[in-house]
Structure formats: C-alpha cells, structure tokens
C-alpha cells in the first residue's frame, strides 16, 4: 500500500533522513520507535507530504505521490493524520471540526457528514461533546476528537505523530484504547510513539529508527525481545 524508495530529507545542511526503504502492506499496524531526532516524525510527515522530499520516491497504491504532477490534496484525502498537539480548530465546534473537510471537499452532504460525525463521536465516546468547543475539552478528549476528525474523510491510511506525547499520563490510556479499536478494525496505521507497551501489544511490525535510517524491522517479539542491532539493544535497554 505504501512503498518508500531511498527517501532522503535535508533541512539546509542537516540530513534528517538518510535513505529509507520501506514497504507497508494494507492492514498493517506499523509502529516506529527510536530516540529523539532520529527522523521518525519527519518520515511520517513525508508520507503525508507535509515535508518536501529531498530525494527518493513514495508510492501510495502504486501512485508516486511526490511527483510534481500529482494533486497533493487528493492524496492527502486518502491519509488521515493525527498530530502531537491535536491541532483542533479552536473557532469551530467539535461537530464542525469533524464535518468541515468532508462537506467542503464535497465528499458528503452536510446531513451525511453530521450523521458520520455522530457515529465517529460515539466510537470515541464523546457524542455529548458535539456542540462543545475544543477549549472545553481535556487533552485526551481533544486527541480522540482529532482521530474522529481524520476518520471522517474515510481515509485508507492513518498516520499518528506521537499522539500521546503531549498528554497527561492519566489520559494516555483513553487515546491508546481508541487506537487499539481502530487497529482491530483493520485500518492501515503508521504510528510514531514512545509508548513501548502499546507498540508491543498492537503493532504488527515495529521499526527502529536512528540517524535517519531504519535499523531494525520486525514483529514486536523480534524487535523487543531479540534485537539484532547494537543500537536497538542500547536504546531498548534505556527505555524498557
């Protein structure tokens, strides 16, 4: 579903990604772990073209998405993105946050979008907040709304950029639960996180990144219990 070939990303002189090659199948839940500054988030943001790719090719459904001729907006409609800082729209109610894009992009009528919004809010347990504004919600609730907002576009792939890093510890669970349910439903997911317990439990595959490269890739059991790379062993010994 996603194919990445020799992906490089440079910010000025700083090389953040140094040749990433990766193949993600439909239905996989890929968790990316690694130390800060290893390029995990940049890798994820490149998949959604929030960063310009310096070199290399990214294919989604066999279409090269970083080709100049591609309509970026259409590509992004296939991919939902959830951010560390939620980025809900503070001037819109929760329901409007969710229905804005599907209605504006004419994927649904207003009525359909509201119905879909109610379904999604029910799944994330926040139907009673439909008319509230983001500022009235807790961090965990905001992130659950952000997930619902991304799902409203019926994406094929969901990207999560450290979705629980900005949350109070007691709110992490509620967000991870929503993500677990989503994983069980068969959604293709790429998740950058520091939640090792979650990675172990939910991931179908774990990628370990450092210095802009994927150093190790395997099932949670392989990566966490039998890491092959020295750097992986070193990292895991510090975080586990």
């Amino acid at each position, binding site marked *: 579903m996603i194919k990445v070939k020799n992906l490089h990303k440079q910010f000025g002189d700083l090389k953040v990604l140094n040749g990433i090659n990766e193949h993600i199948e439909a239905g996989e839940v890929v968790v990316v772990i690694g130390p800060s500054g290893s390029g995990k988030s940049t890798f994820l943001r490149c998949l959604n073209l929030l960063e310009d790719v310096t070199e290399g090719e990214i294919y989604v459904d066999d279409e090269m998405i970083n080709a100049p001729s591609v309509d970026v*907006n*259409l590509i*992004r*409609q296939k991919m*939902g993105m959830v*951010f560390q*800082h939620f*980025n809900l729209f503070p*001037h819109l109610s929760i329901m409007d946050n969710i229905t804005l894009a599907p209605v504006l992009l004419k994927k649904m009528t207003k009525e359909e979008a509201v119905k879909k919004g109610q379904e999604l809010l029910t799944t994330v347990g926040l139907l009673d907040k439909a008319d509230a504004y983001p*500022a009235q919600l807790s961090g965990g609730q905001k992130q659950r709304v952000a997930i619902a907002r991304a799902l409203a576009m019926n994406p094929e792939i969901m990207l999560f950029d450290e979705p629980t890093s900005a949350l109070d510890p007691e709110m992490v669970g509620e967000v991870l639960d929503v993500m677990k349910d989503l994983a069980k439903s068969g959604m293709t997911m790429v998740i950058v996180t520091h939640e090792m317990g979650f990675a172990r439990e939910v991931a179908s595959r774990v990628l370990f990144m450092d210095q802009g490269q994927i150093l190790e890739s395997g099932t949670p059991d392989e990566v966490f219990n039998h890491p092959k790379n020295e750097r992986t062993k070193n990292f895991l010994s510090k975080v586990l």
Partner: protein
Amino acid sequence: MEWFQTWSADFCDTFARCFIKDNRYILLLDGIGVTIRVSLVAVLIGIAIGLLIALCNLSSNKLLKLIGGIYTDVIRGTPSVTQLMIIYFVIFASVNLSKWIIAAIAFGINSGAYVSEIIRAGILSVDKGQTEAGRSLGLSASQTMTRIVIPQAVKNIFPALCNEFIVLIKETAIVGYVGLMDIQKAGDFIKSATFEAFMPLIGTAIIYYVLIKILTLVLNRVESRLRASEVR
C-alpha cells in the same frame, strides 16, 4: 459673582455667534456626515486592500511579494496629505466622481498599507499546526486560509484593526485640502468667519472626541462578542 455673570454672558454670546448665527451648526452637522462617510468607506477599502497586500506579502510568489513590498513601502514613506492630493488632483483629476468618494479611496489606499501589516501579523500569529491540520485533511491552501487561518486571525487582530480605524477617522481631518467640508474644515470656516479661535476649535475637538468615544464603546462590545464564542 459679577465676573461670573459677565463671563457667562460673554460665553453664551460667543457660542451663539459661532454655532447658532447663520445656522452655522448645520456646517458642523454636515461635516460630521462627511467625516463619517469618508471614514466608513475608507475603512472598508482599507481592509480589502490590506487583505490583498497581506496575502501578497505572505505568498511564495516573488512578483506578488515585490508588489506588496513596494506598496507598503511607498505608502508608509509618504505623507497622507501628499497622497490625498496626488490622488485627487492627479489621478482622479479628470474622473467625474463625488469628492468624498475620491477622498475615501485615497484614505482606503493609505490605510490598506497599515492594515496589511496588521493582517500579516495576525495570519502569522495562528499556529502552524492549524495549517498543517487543514492541509492534512486534504483542504487546499486557499481553503485552509479562508476557513481555518483567517477566522482565527480576525479575533487576534481585532483590537489593532479598531485602533487603525480610529487613527483613520482622525486622519480624515485633512480632507479640507481637497475642498471637502468635514468637521475640521467646518470648524476652521467658523473660525475665519467669526474671528473666534477658542470656541470653534474646541468645539471641533469635542465632536471628534465624542465620535471616537462612541465608536470605541461599540467596537468594545463587538470584541467581547467575538471573545464570547471562544470559551477558554
């Protein structure tokens, strides 16, 4: 108490001579009308131009950036009286438009440069994550701008825009240069006709003050409305 009686009789006499005799108050009332019309239309033109120039300045297109830069530079670098006179006597010299409309255009063009800086700052004050969230949902750059960034920017810049509006009203006191009879010019006219300086000039000041006071109260109301929708 005798001095007081003389003084108050004197005051009433001057007052009558300045404002009542020959229906001179009508001049001031008409002047208020001119000032309000010119300011209102100018502020609308200013916001429209300001938004356009702000978008030019923020755009990645080098030509648009250059145009926006030159505009702000030239307008800020020349006095508004000069701009008003150039627009009235040169650019619109052979155009048959009401004086006050030409003046409003001139002040709108002037105000646009300042408003553009306010709007630019407002747009930059909206967190980058908001744009990213909009784009990640598949919205185009312009949809993200109009639906997500600008509505939030408006709240942030409202006080600064109000301030600009007030500055603009006072700035219009120079329209006498192109022969419009606004509040200032009416006061000036009364001064010449009566050889009284104190009464007409203080009167002019009071009228401006009251106008701006009323406007400030109204705008404060609007601002608290705007804030009410954003529960923190």
